[in-house]
Every structure is written in structure tokens, then in C-alpha cells.
């Protein structure tokens, strides 16, 4: 589907904001730097040639190996990954956008990494970003109403992180 020339067109349009491209994977994806996310997403949605007007899914993946033995064999260093699955209703094509984030903002534990929110571009991102903030602890700047959505408001910790420890008790209920 001519993915290659679309990507080259995208590259020369945005240049260094696209850090990496991988078309051989089962779902070809391009990696984008957080700062350029808003610009690229609006372009991808509005440009008729791309026309990605439908954000199918926004998911987070935590690349961190808790136990040291396996950590040695792993070929990536710990980071958080945001994966945007886009779909174009007109052209019936899909594209995957990835954003690599440090696990904690500039290394300080409990300091959540920042990403600009795309809720302005696709309204569905509003709830998806709240879920990722709730389960992964990634702060989305510019999000209309960033609160926990699945866990109770006063829950501590971010459950889907690999190094997450279940609290011993919550409001008197034993959890572990």
C-alpha cells in the first residue's frame, strides 16, 4: 500500500521528530518524540492522503524486568512505551505511533513522565489517557480532566507497572 513512500513523505515533512521507523513488523510502526506528538497527530488526521480520523486504541507498555537475573539478558533498557493504533475509515489503512518515555521523569522516582494529551484531536483519547494515567502513571499535560478511572480515586501506586507492589490493606480490607 505504498507505505514506504508515505513514510518518506512524512519524514521529509517532520524530519527529526520521527526517530525510528519499522515497516517489517506485523504492524508497521513509527516512533515519535513526545514534543512532536501533537503536530504529527493533527497532520495525520487532517491530511486527506493519510486521513487517520479514528484512534482505535491507546495502550501503555512497561519495559522493565524486575528480577536481576533476567534483566541481564534483556536487550532494551527500562522505559515506558505509549502505543497509538490509528485507523483511517476512508482509506481502510492502519498505522501505529510509538512514544518512548523514561520510567520516571528525569530519574526521580514517583515523578510521573509527561506527554502532551491528544484528547483535543480524538475525543476518545480522553478516557484512554485517564486509564493509562490510572494504571501506568503517565501524566498527560493539557488533558481536560485527568483523574483515575478504573481504580478508586484515593488508590496508591500504578498497578500495571512491572515493579508494582500490591498495598497490604486498603481502608481496612486486607489485599495481600
Amino acid at each position, binding site marked *: 500500500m505504498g507505505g514506504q513512500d508515505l513514510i518518506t513523505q512524512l519524514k521529509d515533512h517532520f524530519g527529526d521528530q520521527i526517530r525510528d521507523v519499522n515497516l517489517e513488523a506485523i*504492524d508497521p510502526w513509527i516512533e515519535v518524540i513526545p514534543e512532536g506528538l501533537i503536530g504529527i497527530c493533527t497532520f495525520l488526521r487532517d491530511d486527506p492522503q493519510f486521513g487517520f480520523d479514528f484512534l482505535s486504541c491507546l495502550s501503555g507498555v512497561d519495559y522493565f524486568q524486575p528480577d536481576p537475573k533476567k534483566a541481564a539478558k534483556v536487550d532494551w533498557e527500562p522505559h515506558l512505551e505509549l502505543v497509538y493504533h490509528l485507523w483511517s475509515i476512508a482509506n481502510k489503512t492502519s498505522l501505529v505511533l510509538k512514544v518512548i518515555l523514561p520510567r520516571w521523569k528525569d530519574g526521580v522516582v514517583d515523578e510521573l513522565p509527561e506527554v502532551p494529551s491528544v484528547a483535543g484531536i*480524538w475525543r476518545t483519547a480522553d478516557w484512554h489517557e485517564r486509564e493509562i494515567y490510572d494504571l501506568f502513571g503517565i501524566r498527560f499535560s493539557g488533558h481536560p480532566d485527568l483523574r*483515575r478511572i478504573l481504580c478508586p480515586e484515593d488508590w496508591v501506586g500504578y498497578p500495571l507497572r512491572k515493579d508494582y507492589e500490591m498495598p497490604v490493606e486498603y481502608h481496612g480490607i486486607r489485599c495481600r
Partner: protein
Amino acid sequence: MSTVEKTQIVEFDVRTDEMLVNMGPQHPSTHGVLRLVLRTDGEIVSEVTPHLGYLHRCAEKIGENLTPRQWSPYTDRMDYLAGMSMNLGWSLCVEKLMNLHVTEKARHLRVIIAEMQRIASHLVGMGVYGLDLGSFSPFLYAFREREKILDLFEEVCGARLTYSYLTVGGATADFPPGWLEKCESFLEQFLPVIDEYHALLTTNAIFIKRCAGIGVISREMAISYGCTGPVLRGSGVDMDLRRDGEEWYTNMYDGYAFEVIVEKDGHYPNDHTYPAVPPEAILGDSWHRFYVRMLEVRQAVDLVHQAIDCYRKAEGSCGDPVKITEKLPKGEAYLETEAPRGQMGFYVVSDGSAIPWRVKARSSCFCNLSVTSDLCRNTLIADIPAIIGSLDIVMGEIDR
């Protein structure tokens, strides 16, 4: 120009203060444990904020410790009214990752099961919607037919609600002998019943008065909020993954003739005798969503007929499921399938071991429900169940 002080009597209505009302989590018409905080002024609801998470069972965290075949029982507990479609979606996603093609017979078997599940799920959607609007009888008619489908499923895989029958590589067992004839006899006696439902609800004057023009979702709003399935098609967006989805999913349906149920330039694909669209109904309102579901039941019946013929012609095994601890190739895969309530997406990331690194389920009702706060602004209290009922949400799938 000088602003001339002009005293003018500004008239306000009788000031009444607002009331915060909790509709849910225990409420007869919120389809499970959904809590809606309504800010009402008398009967008029000025703002709705849904609160979720009451049924959150951390399915995705558990998915990081189980192999794909062990995790499939978790998938059919997500949308417990359409368990087969969830299993199908998860198996296809893992097969896409492993690039594993199932046999021809298994493909047709999957179409039969998926479309029968769609009929059962839409029957629940229709029956419960009648209940939300206050008429009790359609609910029982719908469940009478659904019981028959559940009996058929019970014969196939032993379970009535949470099947985990379709797995990676095909299905755990083939159809028992005589099952296809029973299935066909069910479909024969089901056709006149559909017209009964139309007479009972779709063309009922009070039903139309309660649904038409209520909770209108425009085309752009539906796409922007990521609504899918009957909610999207009810707003006139011509998108059905069985025809224009990913190639890995659509080749399951190639060789099948079916029309996507969506209103194109004013009318629906009229290959069957349907009741006409009433004048009050605006494209994208609750009535249209309900109507799309009813037509999809009709479409599913045709599809099952075609699938049964193809299944009889195909030979070979009905698909041999992979080993429980099958090694997954390194990489990631995302696949969306057309579940009865919308597009159910599964995303699996594997690091080469038998247990996936990350598993994510994209729920259709999650996005469909996100529309409510925009939709229910200054409606009446009686409209809230009408709108939420038309979205046909299942809390298990939303909270995962």
C-alpha cells in the same frame, strides 16, 4: 461609543436549586455496576458524570502471568453476553502474532459460532432496552429465543455463558453430530419471531416517541469518540470490520455475501422486508441504533445459513489447538474484530517466551459509554435509561 446605562428588567424563571442524584451503582437500568452522578434541576438533567471501575478485575495484569490459551477464559468474562466473540478476537490476535493459519473448516465453524453469538447478544440488547423503557414483555420473548441458542452452545462446548470454546488454532471440539440440523431448524422458526419483535417494539408508537430524536450522536462525534459497531453505524458511518477490517480478519469472511447495515442516502439495504423508518427518527438517535441491531440479527441469520453450507462442503479437521505452553514469537500484534457491541481489539506484546509481556483489551463499550456526558446534557431523567440502553453497554467489558 458611550455605553448608555440602560436599566432593563431581566426576567429569571423561578429559581430552584440543583440536586445531585446518584443513579447507580445499584440501579435497575444501568446494565450492571455503572454509577452516574446526575446534576438535576427538577426533572431536567444538566450534567452526567459516569464513574467506572466497580467491576475492574485486573484482567490485563493477570494476562502477564498466563499463556494465551490459559488467558482465554478471561476474555469471555469481559463481554459476558458475547463470550464467543471475545474468544474469537483473542485467538485471531494471537494467531496473527504467530502467523498461524487455521484450516478451512475451522474458519467456517468460527463464522457460524460468531454469528449465532451475535444473534444471542442482540436479543439481550433488544429485550433489556424494552425493559428500560418500561415494557416488560419483549424481554421475555427475547430470552426465550436466546435460551434456544444457549442450549445449542451448551451442546457444542458444555457452557452457556462463559465458553472459552474458540482458542488459538481453531476450536476445542468439533460440532456434535446433528448439531447443524438443530441449528437450521432454530433459524427457520426464528424468522417469524423477528417480525414479532418489530411489531412489539420497533413500530410501537410509544417506543418511537421515547426513542426517536433522543441522544443523537452526529457522524463526527461518533468517529471522534471512537464509537464502534451499531452505535457507529446508527450514526450513518459505513464501517463494518467484517468487510473493511484488517486483511487477517476479513479473510475469515471472504466468500460470504452480506450487506453492511447502515443508512446510505436515506435508506437501509432492503434485501428483506423491514418496517420503514418513522419520520420522527433522526439519523444517529437511539431509535436508529436499536434498528441497526434488529437488522443485524436478520443479517446474522443469512450469514449462518451460508456458513453452514460452506462448513458442510469443507473437509479436514476443525482446527487443532496449539499446545498450552506454545512458545510465542518475539514481537507484537494488534487486531480488532467486529463483536456484537462494537470493535473489540486485542493487543499482545511478546518477548519470545510462552507468556506474553503485555496484554491489552480495547473495549468497544468503553468508548461508546464515553459519549454519555456529552449526550445527556439537559435531557429528562426518563431519557437517561433510554440513551444508555441504546448504547447497549456491558460493564464487564468496560472495567475489564
